[in-house]
C-alpha cells in the first residue's frame, strides 16, 4: 500500500498548481535539504520524464528549490524561491534529461558546498506523495509499509549494532532492513523499516552515535 493516510488524499495543504509537480517536488527538495543539513552553495537539479517536459509551468523549479531551503508545501514564499535562493547565495542549475526512468515524475538533486556533496533521486507518485529511490548512489528500496529510518554512516565495526541496539532498547520492532555500501570502510547506508512511530528523542540518540553521518525519517 503506497498510500497509508487519508491526508495523502485530502491534502497536502499546498501552494498550487500541481500536487505531484509542485508539492511533491517541494518534498523531494525538503528531504534533500534535510539530509544535507546546511545551506548548499550549489543545487544541481535534473528533471526527467513529465518533470522535464513541464517543470516551469508547474512551478516544479521553484518548489524544489524552496524545499531545499526548508519551505514546506504550503509556504507562500515558494513562488519566489529562486530569488530567495539567489539572496542566500545558492547557485541553482536546472537540467533536463531524456533518460528513461522507472517513474514519469523523477528528479535528481545534488547539493554541494566546500565540505561535500549530497545527492538524492526522488519520484513523485501523485497527490504530493513521494518516494526516495536513490541516496548518494545507494539504491533505496522501501516497501512503503511503514515509517522508515534512513541512516548514512561510516562503514565501521559495530555501527549497525549500535543503531539496532537503540531501537531494541526503545522496543521498536524492525520490519525490514537493508544495508549497503560502495566500498569497505567508506560511506554506508542503512534503511530500516519500523512498525512504530519513531520519536525525535530516539532519532537524536541515533544521530549522536560516533559513526553516524546523517539520519532521516521517511513515510511519516
Amino acid at each position, binding site marked *: 500500500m503506497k*498510500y497509508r493516510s487519508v*491526508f495523502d488524499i*485530502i*491534502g497536502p495543504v499546498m*501552494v498550487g*498548481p500541481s500536487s505531484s509537480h509542485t508539492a511533491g517536488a517541494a518534498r523531494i527538495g525538503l528531504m534533500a535539504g534535510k539530509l544535507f543539513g546546511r545551506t548548499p552553495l550549489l543545487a544541481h537539479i535534473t528533471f526527467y520524464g*513529465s518533470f522535464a517536459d513541464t517543470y516551469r*509551468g*508547474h512551478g516544479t523549479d521553484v518548489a524544489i528549490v524552496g524545499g531545499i531551503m526548508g519551505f514546506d508545501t504550503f509556504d507562500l514564499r515558494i513562488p519566489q524561491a529562486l530569488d530567495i535562493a539567489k539572496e542566500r547565495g545558492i547557485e541553482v542549475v536546472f537540467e533536463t534529461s531524456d533518460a528513461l526512468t522507472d517513474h514519469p515524475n523523477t528528479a535528481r538533486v545534488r547539493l554541494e558546498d566546500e565540505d561535500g556533496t549530497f545527492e538524492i533521486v526522488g519520484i513523485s507518485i501523485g497527490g504530493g506523495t513521494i518516494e526516495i529511490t536513490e541516496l548518494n548512489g545507494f539504491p533505496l528500496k522501501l516497501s512503503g509499509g511503514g515509517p522508515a529510518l534512513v541512516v548514512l554512516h561510516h562503514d565501521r565495526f559495530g555501527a549497525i549494532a549500535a543503531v539496532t541496539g537503540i531501537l531494541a532498547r526503545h522496543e521498536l520492532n524492525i520490519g525490514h532492513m537493508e544495508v549497503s555500501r560502495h566500498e569497505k570502510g567508506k560511506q554506508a547506508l542503512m534503511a530500516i523499516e519500523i512498525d512504530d512511530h519513531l520519536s525525535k528523542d530516539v532519532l537524536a540518540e541515533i544521530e549522536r552515535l560516533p559513526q553516524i553521518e546523517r539520519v532521516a525519517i521517511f513515510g511519516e
Partner: protein
Amino acid sequence: MFKSVEELVRTATERGIPISEVMIEQEVHVRRSTREDVVGMMERNLEVMEEAVARALEGVTSVTGLTGNDAVLMTDYIRSGKSLAGDLILDAVAKAIGTNEVNAAMGRICATPTAGSAGVVPGTLFAVKERLKMDRDAMVRYLFTSGAFGFVVANNASISGAAGGCQAEVGSATGMAAAAIVEAAGGTPEQSATAFAIALKNMLGLVCDPVAGLVEVPCVKRNAMGGANAIVAADMALAGITSRIPCDEVISAMHEIGQMMPTALKETARGGLANTPTARRLERNIFGEKENVEK
C-alpha cells in the same frame, strides 16, 4: 487497511456506520493518534478550502493570465436568475472553478486528491451543504468519505496525471465527491460506491494535456465539469440506479486505460489540447522558445 471499495462498503454496512467513520477509525489506527487530532487535521483542511473559494470569489488571475475570474462570472450569472442548469449545480461549478483558479495562481489550496483536481470535492461540498443542512461535523465527514474512496484509487490505480491521465485526477475527484454527496444526503454506503462508479465511468479515457504544461487550460474547466458530473452521479445513485460494472472494476479499468495511454497525453504537454496551434502560440508567448538547459 481496506484495499477495495467492496471491503470498505462491507465494513461500513456490517457495522452500521458511515464510510466516513471507517476512514476516521483507520486513520486513528495508522497515525496512532486520537480521534480528536485526526478530525482536527481535517477541519484545518476544510478551512483552507473555504479560504481558497473566498479568495476566488473576490477575483483572482494566474501569473500567465490564462485563467482567472471565471468563478466571479459564473456567480454573477447564477444571480441573474437566467441559468438553465439549476443553481445548485452551477454553484458547485463556480466554486470548483474558483478553487482551481486560486491553484493556478499559485495560491494556497488543499489537494483533493491532487492540486489539478482540487476544485471538485470542495466545490460540490460548499454547493450542497445548505440544501443538505450540513453542520461542521457533516462537512468534515464529507472529506473523510471522499478520502476513503480516493485512498482505494490511489492504492489500486493512480491519482497522478503523469501516470494515468486526467481521469486519474479529475476523474478520481469526481467519483470521490459523488460518493461523499450520497453519504451527506443520507444514502447507503452501497449507493456511495454506485455514485463513485457512475461518476468515474463518465471520466474514463480523459487525457491530461495541459496547455503550455500549465495547470490552467483545460484543468480549471474540467474541475467545473467534474463538479456537475459528481452531483448528477450522486442523484442517479440516490434514485436507485445501479452500476452494472462494480466500483472496484471501474477503478481497475481506469488503471488499465491509464497504462495504455500514450505518454504524449499524460501531463507532458506534447499532445492533445497542448499540441493545438493556439496552445503552441500561447506557450511561445509565455515561455519564449524552449531551452534545454537554463542557469
